[in-house]
């Protein structure tokens, strides 16, 4: 496969100004990442700052409902409350090695923005976060967190004020300052080498799953499931298992209200290949090639594109593309609360909902792993408003 490509997906579809910095980035990643110094610093921070390894938890009560053995890979316990820090720490270290003095990024749920400013502070880098005005309202508490940590949070009003518009604005900003500034991409999207870099930093998830499940069960799991939009937590969990064809992989995207027009974020159901924000990938778009806004209650899944690698893996059938509707997702939150005492992020609740509503796909002797990508603190308002109306 050509470098930067996953099948036909991927590439570097950005304006000329950014190409040199992408080449510089690719070189820097290849130079620094494999060195023992980088590995030691990265792994040290993941362990001591981030709290890795995160546990693989056998959810006994939840398993009873599903009628098979369900393990949760507890990325919610990672510092910051989601898997995002794996990537943010890795890239912030890389930015420091490259001599950049500033990080910029975009965020939707705020989880990635939070992870970025945390990593920035650790590495002594300034941080500016672009966030859609609508998301700033929906995820107000994460805005407070980012500001408190010292990030500049810049509201993005263009478009509909959600993630897609914010990525565009961050790319624009990067065009003006790429010599000094590092764009810390938040998911396995964007131009090469971002999808590869992000997946590599996230792949620690799957490596741990492998070791942990072997220790607990003496065998590999029958299936691994993850939610996603760009695909970073999913690829992080899947990468160690892709060659092992016997292991079923499920990718659950945001179904939104319904699969009817403009009420969904289910790009694998409703989209087609297209170029958005630097890469060829599966994208929600109209028949003319205009990108459609996505819709889901989970801010972190509210992106019309699927990263190149997950697009490819779903296209070739290695990963099954699934979805869950908002209503099912809220019910899944409640089930996880009551059975295991855990409030999942709305994003994470998609994978829980899928399992609860497709029990028949899992045999009673099977062992399955849900990548539990984040905790629901950021969604607390939304969830309580949904259930109690205030």
């Amino acid at each position, binding site marked *: 496969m050509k470098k930067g490509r996953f099948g036909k997906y991927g590439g570097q579809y950005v*304006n*000329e100004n950014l*190409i*040199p910095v992408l080449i510089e980035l690719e070189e820097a990643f290849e130079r620094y990442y494999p060195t023992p110094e980088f590995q030691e610093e990265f792994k040290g921070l993941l362990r001591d700052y981030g709290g890795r390894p995160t546990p693989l938890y056998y959810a006994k009560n939840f398993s009873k409902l599903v009628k098979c053995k369900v393990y949760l890979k507890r990325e919610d316990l990672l510092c910051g409350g989601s898997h995002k820090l794996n990537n943010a720490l890795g890239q912030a270290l890389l930015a420091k090695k490259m001599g950049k003095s500033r990080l910029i990024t975009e965020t939707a749920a705020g989880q990635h923005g939070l992870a970025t400013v945390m990593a920035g502070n650790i590495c002594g880098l300034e941080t500016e976060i672009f966030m859609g005005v609508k998301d700033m309202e929906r995820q107000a508490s994460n805005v407070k967190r980012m500001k408190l940590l010292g990030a500049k949070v810049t509201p993005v009003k263009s478009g509909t004020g959600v993630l*897609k518009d914010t990525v565009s604005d961050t790319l624009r900003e990067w065009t003006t300052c790429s010599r000094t500034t590092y764009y810390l991409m938040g998911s396995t999207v964007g131009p090469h080498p971002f999808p590869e870099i992000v997946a590599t930093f996230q792949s620690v998830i799957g490596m741990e799953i492998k070791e942990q499940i072997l220790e607990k069960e003496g065998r590999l799991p029958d299936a691994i499931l993850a939610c996603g939009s760009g695909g970073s937590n999913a690829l992080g969990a899947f990468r160690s298992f892709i060659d092992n064809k016997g292991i079923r992989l499920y990718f659950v995207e945001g179904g939104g209200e319904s699969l009817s027009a403009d009420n969904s974020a289910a790009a694998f159901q409703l989209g087609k290949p*297209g*170029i958005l924000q630097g890469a060829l990938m599966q994208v929600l778009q109209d028949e*003319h090639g205009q990108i459609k806004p996505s819709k889901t209650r989970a801010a972190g899944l509210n992106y019309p594109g699927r990263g190149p690698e997950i697009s490819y893996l779903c296209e070739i059938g290695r990963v099954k593309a699934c979805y869950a509707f908002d209503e099912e997702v809220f019910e899944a939150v409640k089930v996880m609360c009551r059975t295991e005492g855990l409030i999942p992020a709305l994003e994470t609740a998609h994978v829980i909902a899928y399992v609860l509503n497709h029990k028949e796909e899992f045999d009673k002797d099977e062992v399955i792993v849900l990548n539990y990508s984040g905790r629901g603190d950021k969604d607390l308002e939304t969830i309580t408003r949904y259930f109690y109306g205030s």
Partner: protein
Amino acid sequence: MDLEEKFWELRERREGAHMPHVYYGDPNEEFSLKLIRTLVENGADFIEFGFPFSDPTADGPTFQAACERALKKGMTPAKCIQGIKKLRRSGLEVPLVVTTYYNIPYVTGIGTFLSEIKKVGAQAIIVPDLPVEEADVLLNEGKKWGVHVIFQAAPTTTEDRLKKIAGIASGFLYVIGVEGVTGARESLADSTLKLVNRVRKYTDVPVLAGFGISRREHAAAVVSAGADGAIAGSAYAEIYEKNLKNPEETLPEIAQLVKQIKRGCVEGYRQRLGNPYDH
């Protein structure tokens, strides 16, 4: 008229070229048609005919808003093509350069798209999110259908890549003057001038400089520094967007500006002829 011919003619007239950039359909089709005619009647040598895209990552706020307005009004690539057809039917002769983001030709099929714009009378295409590394298909289809593929060079472009870009340039080369996106700017970055000179080392293909040009002096400066012309876009949109209800009322002001910028292009060219760095 093809690009070469136009540049030949301009050289003969000892003029720098001016190419205004317009997003078609903003705020509606009729206005765009009038705008283009006004621009051409008052000095535009080429028209950069933008197909609006939902996510124009290389465009600044002015053109983002332009795309948004056009799309909201129902603009489509098919209607853009019809627009070119109308312009040609009404006798517009200057070369037309289509600009759009790669997803638009991609979903239609690159070949189909190029054949269609060629058929209605466009001469070239600019795809701002398509660097040379990704351009094989577009280049092949461009050759096949006789559409120039215009590449861009930027201040950040390394010497190696500049050579490569210059090597495959056809029609003209688009020099992005600033590290940034489209949008009118008060002062013209030094980097534009430097980059024009850097490019000149590698190619004789005409060079048009764009991004941030909004005044006569800007145009004069880039052309005198070695460019064959200047591109301006947001500067025009900034005029009519102040009066979106009756944008036609702003056409006289736009006419003034295009005259000024064209005059800058001419002045710059004449200065350059007395310029020792000119070759």
